[in-house]
Structure formats: C-alpha cells, structure tokens
C-alpha cells in the first residue's frame, strides 16, 4: 500500500519547548491509526502540522506523494484532509443543518469545480447527519445540542467534506459509555472509505479501532505497532500505559 501521509524530520518548537521533535511517520492509505501518549506529548501539535493549523519549525509533510509542507490549511482541506478539533468547534449560533451544509458546500464547489444544486447540497448534508444519527436535529440550533451531539456534529462536518484523511482529536472525550459504543461503530464505518488518524486517550476505544498504534512522548515517537505489540511494550508502559500511579 502507498503512504497517504508521510512526515520527515517534522519538528515544532514553542519558545524553549520542543513540542514535536524530528518525527518520521508513515500512514498507509485505508488504515485506522491511533496516536496515543501522555498529556503534552505533542499529539495535537503533530496532527496540527499535518492539517496546516500549525507551521512546522523544520521537516516536511507529504500527502499522497506530494509535498504539502507550505500549503495553507484551507487548500489542504480541498486535497482531502479534514480535521475535528480537540476542543469542540462548531457554529454554535447556526442550525445543525447549516453547520454541515457549510462543509458540504465547500466540498461540492471546490474539488469538483462545478456548482451544485440546492437539492444536491441538502442531500449531502442530510446524509452526513444520518451517518452520525443527528438527522432529527437538523433544524435545531447547534449550540443547544448536548455536548456529545456537538462532537458528533463536528464529525458529520468532517464527513460532509468527503475527506481522504479524517483526523479526529480526542473525539470521545466527554461522551457517555453508550455514546462511545456508537462512536466506535461509526469510525469503523468511516474507515471503510477513508483513512482515519485518531488521537485518543480512551484505551478500549483505541484497542477496538486501531490497526496500528503510534505512541508519542515528549515530541517523539517512542513505539509503533499492532495493539497487542503496544500493550506488551515496556517503554510504552513506562511512559504511558502502566505509568506508576503518581497521584
């Protein structure tokens, strides 16, 4: 399989802090990949560079073989990279449907290079909402949704972009157990047509979904492998999984 995403020596400094430190990373097309690691490991910064939200201090990023290191974030969305924020980011004052339509609209105007009809646009929006089971909330104001539903709405916005790579930054944070179960199903489903890069602290979710796990600590990748291999890895246990309870 060819690599959809590849980073070479990717680094980012914030003042004196090396948030991401020379990361070489390869993500094959079609995979569901989880990135785990303790708080402050640099996960959000790392995927932020892939999406174009954060400019790298050095290193390069390839997407589908093309160098996108200096491509602006909005153009990266157009080549197929969609991002959901760690801190939920939706249009709180607009309706649920309008939130998704703004995503679908971009997808339809941009990549196909032709105009859409109002009906097509509505179909695209509603089908994205159906996939996350929010179709009954279409006319509600997004900010009035329950927190879990707002997270799902953001995923629906990502889906409406019909991305090749969907980046989910701690999507299950704050979801109830039943919501998490539904979410695992949803990501499996998404994984059938898109590559998924998932930052996640919830280990059962990671174990259920990830084909490969990348472990980050202090800006570096310290381990990478199948869920079983990662579970058994000593370095990972020390850094993260089995870290001695410190409080």
């Amino acid at each position, binding site marked *: 399989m060819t690599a959809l995403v590849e980073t070479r020596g990717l680094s980012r400094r914030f003042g004196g802090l090396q948030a991401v430190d020379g990361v070489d990373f390869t993500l094959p097309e079609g995979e569901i990949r989880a990135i785990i690691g303790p708080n402050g490991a640099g996960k959000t910064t790392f995927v932020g560079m892939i999406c174009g939200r954060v400019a790298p201090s050095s290193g390069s990023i390839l997407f589908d073989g093309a160098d996108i290191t200096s491509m602006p974030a*909005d153009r990266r969305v157009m080549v197929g990279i*969609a991002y959901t924020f760690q801190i939920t*980011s939706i*249009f*709180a004052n607009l309706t649920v449907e309008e939130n998704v339509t703004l995503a679908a609209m971009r997808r339809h105007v*941009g990549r196909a290079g032709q105009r859409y009809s109002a009906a097509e646009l509505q179909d695209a929006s509603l089908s994205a909402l159906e996939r996350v089971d929010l179709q009954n909330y279409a006319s509600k104001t997004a900010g009035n949704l329950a927190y879990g539903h707002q997270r799902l709405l953001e995923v629906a916005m990502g889906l409406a972009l019909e991305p090749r790579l969907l980046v989910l930054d701690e999507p299950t944070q704050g979801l109830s157990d039943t919501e998490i179960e539904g979410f695992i199903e949803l990501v499996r489903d998404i994984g059938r047509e898109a590559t998924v890069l998932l930052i996640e602290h919830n280990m059962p979710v990671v174990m259920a979904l990830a084909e490969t796990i990348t472990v980050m600590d202090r800006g570096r990748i310290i381990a990478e492998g199948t869920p079983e291999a990662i579970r058994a890895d000593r370095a990972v246990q020390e850094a993260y999984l089995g870290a001695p309870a410190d409080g």
Partner: protein
Amino acid sequence: MNAFAAIDRRALALHLAVIAVLFVLQFVLPAYHHGIMARILVLAVFAMGYNLLFGYTGLLSLGHAMFFSAGLYGAGLSVYHLDWSVPAAFGAGLAGGLVLSAAVGFLALRTTGVAFLIVTMMFGQVAYLFTLYFTDWTRGEEGLTLPQAARVLGPLDLTDPTTRYFAALVLFTIALFVTLALVRAPFGRVLVAIRENEERTRMLGYDTFRNKLGATIASGVICAASGAAYVLLFGYFGSSFAAVQYSILPLLWVLVGGAATTLGPLLGTILMFYLVDLSNDLLNSRFPDWDVSYLGIVGVALVLLILFFPKGLLGSVRDRWVRWLP
C-alpha cells in the same frame, strides 16, 4: 440568477412590499419629509454596505466614511473639475470605492478585532486629511456645490424633488436586492460562518482572507455608490463627510435597525434621522436658551434600545417572532 432561487418567497414578498410602500410614500409625504426620505434612502444604502461587513462578516470598521467619501469625491470632483456626465461620474465614484476598499482591505485584514478597528480608523483619518490637504481641488471643510446644470441624467433633472426621490429609491432598491442576493448566496453564508467561527471556517476549506477581502470590497463599493449618489442628488460635498463621525453613523444606524438583517439598516437610518430631528425641535422649543445638545436624547434612546432590543429592532424581532427574516 442562482442566488435569487435561494431567497424564499416570504422574504421576497416582504422586500417587495417595503419597496412598494416607499414608492407610495412619495405621493403622500409632505414636502419636508419627502426631502428627508430621499436623503434617508441614499444614506440607508451606506448603512447597508456597512452592514455587509459589520453585521454579516463580523468585522467592526471605524473607517467607512472613507468609502462613502471615495464615492462622494470620485463623483463630485469629476463633475466639478472635469465636467463629466452623471453616469460617468457615478462610475468614477464606484471605481474609487473599489480601488480604495481593495487596497485598505488587503492591508487592514491582516489584523483582527480591536486592531482592525484601529487600522480602519487610521486609514479613514488619512482619507479625511487628504480631503483637507488637497484643498485647491476640494475646498476642504467649506466644500463644493455642483452646478444645477450638471446634475441631469438624460431628460431627468436630478434637482427636481420627485425625480430625486425616485432616483434615490432606484438606488436603494438595487442595493437592497444585491445585498439580499449576496447574503443568501454561498458567499454570504461563508461570511456568516467567518463571523461565527473563523478558524472552523478555515478548517472547512475556505480561504477566509479572500472571503473577507471580497466582503470588504462589496461593502466599500456599496458605500461608494451611496456617496456618489449623495453628491449627484444633493449637490454638495465637503470634508465633514469624510470625518470619523460619518464612520460612526452607519454603525449606529445598523445597531439600531438590527445588524445582519437586510432591512435593519433602512429602519435604523429612518429612526435615528427622525430622532435627531425631533429631539432638536423639542429641545429648541422647550428650552430655547439652554442650548442643550440633542445628543442627550439620542443617548437615552440608545440605552433603552440596548436594554430592550440588544440585537437592534429587526434582530430582536427575528429572534423572538419571525425566524425567517433575512
């Protein structure tokens, strides 16, 4: 017109009804109010242009007097010094607004929030100083009056009150429907998205800088159209129109009428105009030798408005009763 298809029937009917009322008013208003209404219609276009940037895109500018003045001076100077015809002068005003808003937008949009407000205000002050500095051509504060003979459009004499009212109404109608089409089109929806959450909009693949620049230019050109029409219809232009006060006025009109509503700017302009007018009369008649300012009454009105209609009149009407109001 794809965009028009998106305008729902109720909204379209409402806007047409407003135009119809304004049309009929022309025959029933007494001469004094007739003249005021013509002025209000032209200035409401200024407010609508401002609303596009402030209300819909969420960018607070305090320099919009420069776009109004670009139209005012672009048209006024080309009639006064170059003897241009009315349509050519109007075109010069629009071109002035286009060039100025593109340049100012390109520079000022590198900032956001308070910095944007300050940068636009500074550009506005520079424009104001220009009108004073080139006093040989502009006559500065004193200003210039266009000769009546130059203010004709084919067979139409723009100094005739009836013709003037109709010309103002035509301009207003065009600006209203252009705004309505813009805000209902994908472009307008993206502007609202930028206002609501710019980072999210960018991460949906929109080039937010380009969209904001587009909004600034559209806003600048509409304001310039108002300025150009103002000088051609009322025949006078001077530096006071470029002063910061004329950047604050459209903000007030929009706040009163309702930001991000298509009809709010008209309503706000009418109310503020008459409020100032009436409070002046009232104060002068009740307290002839007190020499108090109408600003007190205007201030009280604004406080009441913010208490009871925080989103402006039409903004609150939309929130509470008429959700489909554009």
